[in-house]
């Protein structure tokens, strides 16, 4: 259950980016999460929701792209998909695999609306 800690890193990282660049309204945060990170995306979304609630990210959507594991076979040199947990080449059956994708834990993009701003006048009525 490290999703809350990961969510916290995402919120802090995005907040500092927004502050540094002076972006207006932040609509969306795009995340790329590899299969090998063992992150439960539902828990991550929940953590993001809770931790962003009292920040300017309270209406920001978190969009998660999950990346399957793939690699390069060091025996036949072909690019191969990996059916985890078995790290085996789908072409030659070799087990010497260099992992190429599946370890990502990246903030890929931010979607911002420059016309909006994030001060209190924009806040929705309750």
């Amino acid at each position, binding site marked *: 259950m490290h999703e809350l800690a990961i969510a916290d890193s995402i919120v802090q990282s995005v907040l500092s980016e927004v502050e540094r660049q002076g972006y207006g309204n932040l609509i969306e945060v795009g995340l790329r999460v590899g299969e090998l*990170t063992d992150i439960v995306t539902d828990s991550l979304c929940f953590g993001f929701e809770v931790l962003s609630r009292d920040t300017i990210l309270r209406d920001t959507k978190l969009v998660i792209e999950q990346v399957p594991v793939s690699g390069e076979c060091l025996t036949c040199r072909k690019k191969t998909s990996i059916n985890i947990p078995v*790290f085996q080449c789908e072409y030659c059956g070799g087990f010497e695999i260099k992992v190429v994708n599946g370890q990502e834990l990246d*903030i890929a*993009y931010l979607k911002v609306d420059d016309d909006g701003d994030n001060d209190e006048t924009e806040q929705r009525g309750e």
Partner: protein
Amino acid sequence: MERRIEIEKQVLSENDKVALQLRQEFADRRVLALNLVSSPGSGKTSLLVQTLSALKAEFGIAVVAGDVQTENDAQRLRETGGGQIRAIETRGACHLDALMMEKALVEIDLDDIDILFIENVGNLVCPSSYDLGEEMKVVIISTTEGDDKPLKYPGMFRRSSLMITNKIDMIEMCDFDLEKVRSNAVTVNNSLEFINVSCRTGEGLDLWYDWLRKQVASKKATVCDKSG
């Protein structure tokens, strides 16, 4: 106007930045840093108690022991009388991170040691995401666990360099198949090394000590830099 900005920033970049500094520091001081990971109860602390007792005259050793609550593990290690022992109580966090390590290392004199053991929190999932600047991860399992563990936690076994199977004195009682655990582990990580031990009877521990001696020696060896 809406626009999309590609930022491509690693979520754990703050952690990784500190981990990189630690790795450089370990390299400069020629300290072998090993990150010990396992489920709770596999025997990380028992292995370290044995190791400190056996090797304290031979090597300078330090241990940073992480636990969710209590300093019990650190206390057991201190009783061996070997090495510098520091405890990190994570207070709920399921893993150590590089910032906790950096803080704990302030109290350790790296010039005095050859080996730094990092005893991570017992957990085979979360610690795999956090680089602590270690040279390698050593994963410990025990015969009271299932021999399919490498398949259940591929992320951790994939990132480890050595797998120690502990409690082999109990193997008859546990239906644990050494051949099977090994073949399972190899499908996940083809370059994994294996050592079987019993921290209770001492069986196999010499193989572990020899493995450590080999790693320390290669750490101390001088490599001529031909690039300049």
